[in-house]
């Protein structure tokens, strides 16, 4: 099983009434790699993720996750994955710690309290752990969301547009978290509409357009296809971001916002 791909998708089709969202999607994701599904809004990225995480059933085609067919063995698939959906899936009424304990209990793990404290520390949320999640900033909420997904150390993690709506600092924190996950051997499938995100993170990038994968390869391979357009876009974008981060980053660290009170793991480039 180890030699097999972590995720294998073949001929996947899905329609919602008259809308043919997926028209035969094929791709493989290698174990321990970061795979980006790139596409504009409405391209069907979320539909693919929902089928792979057993929230939706495909009309045709097969998909297997961690060696288990999603249609035939959804229970085994759920044991092997974690989903971080498009909207931060945290319970707003509960505190950050209670959210983590809840997921640890639902995963039937021992010592849910210790697991929660450990993750709060890893994601620099220890201080905010006792506060209601509704008081968290967007970046903190996303960190908590991802921390909840790591409970039980699932071998495969789906991140559906993990940085949509986040400010640049929070975005970099999420990127660093994703990278450290992959370094630890977790397979990550992420969807994004941001080209630079795919460029920063992914070992392989597949472009989903109008219901099919129109390109699938490493960044270098994709760049060879359309060098001019790619380079122009990618080079312009980071410049403004760099300016912003330089301006905000240096004196911004003392902000009252807990969001910026970061610890060892998802640290930005500035030190505390």
């Amino acid at each position, binding site marked *: 099983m180890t030699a097999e791909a972590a995720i294998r998708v073949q001929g996947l089709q899905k329609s919602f009434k008259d809308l043919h969202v997926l028209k035969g999607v094929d791709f493989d994701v290698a174990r321990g790699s970061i795979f980006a599904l790139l596409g504009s809004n409405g391209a069907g990225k979320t539909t693919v993720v929902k089928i792979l995480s*057993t*929230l939706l059933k495909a009309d045709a085609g097969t998909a297997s996750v961690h060696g288990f067919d999603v249609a035939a063995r959804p229970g085994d698939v*759920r044991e092997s994955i974690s*989903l971080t*959906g498009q909207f*931060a899936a945290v*319970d*707003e009424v509960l505190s950050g710690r209670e959210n983590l304990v809840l997921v640890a209990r639902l995963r039937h793990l021992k010592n849910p309290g210790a697991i929660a404290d450990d993750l709060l520390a890893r994601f620099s949320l220890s201080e905010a752990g006792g506060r209601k999640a509704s008081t968290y900033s967007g970046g903190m909420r996303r960190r908590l969301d991802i921390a909840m997904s790591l409970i039980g150390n699932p071998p495969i993690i789906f991140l559906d547009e993990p940085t949509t709506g986040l400010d640049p600092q929070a975005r970099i924190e999420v990127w660093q978290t994703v990278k450290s996950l992959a370094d630890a051997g977790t397979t990550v499938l992420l969807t994004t509409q941001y080209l630079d995100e795919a460029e920063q993170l992914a070992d392989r990038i597949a472009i989903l357009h109008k219901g099919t994968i129109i390109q699938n390869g490493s960044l270098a391979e994709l760049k060879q296809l359309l060098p001019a357009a790619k380079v122009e876009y990618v080079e312009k974008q980071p410049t403004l971001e760099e300016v912003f981060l330089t301006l905000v980053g240096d004196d911004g660290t003392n902000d009252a916002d807990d969001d910026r009170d970061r610890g060892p793991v998802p640290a930005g480039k500035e030190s505390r």
Partner: protein
Amino acid sequence: MTTHVLGDTGVLTGRSLRHILRSPDTIITTAVTPIALMLLFVYVLGGAINTGSDESYVNYMLPGILLITIASGIAYTAYRLFLDLQGGIFERFQSMPIARSSVLWAHVLTSLVANLLSVAIVIGVALIMGFRTGASVAAWLAVAGILILFTLALTWLAVIAGLSAKTVDGASAFSYPLIFLPFISSAFVPTDTMPGPVAWFAENQPVTSIVDTIRALFAQEPVGGDIWIALAWCVGILVISYGFAIAIYRRKMN
């Protein structure tokens, strides 16, 4: 997976009970309207109402008030379920290795606890207002059993509303007709004072048989055939709305 149904339901029920604990206003708002109605009917209108019995008016109308309490309380279940669906938390639960039905059962059990608390508050106020009963422990248990069955039946109806609503308002609006149903029943006035078609409706809708049963239990009178009609209504609504709720839930997952 089924081995965890109870444990998972317990954990998730704990979660939604915490929601109630942190916003106890939902229990209080549920109790406020019935209490206001009770004050209005007992101290303003009640004096002019001839119930044809020797019972004090508060004794007469309390059963109907309890049903109104439950009918308004279950709207919060639809509301909470709708919010879970709107946020991503529902999908997170669905993608985890937990028993899927436990997500719904947790909301249903929470509804039961919350409604029983509201009902207890309303009964407490009724006692202050002069409600008295010599009902035996067995009669009280029978009343509790009917109220629990009624709550479960309406809660599964609320689950349907919560699962299929498109807006927050839609999720709770379905309960308004249920809140008004007791007014066209024997809850506040005897049905024989109503004009023919209205009386026919009042006598043959679920609330009247349930109200009459609870009233008889409190008054230590024989419940007669009413209790069976009442139970049939409750179980019937429960089974049908449970069936629909589960069907909608399954379809939503595909």
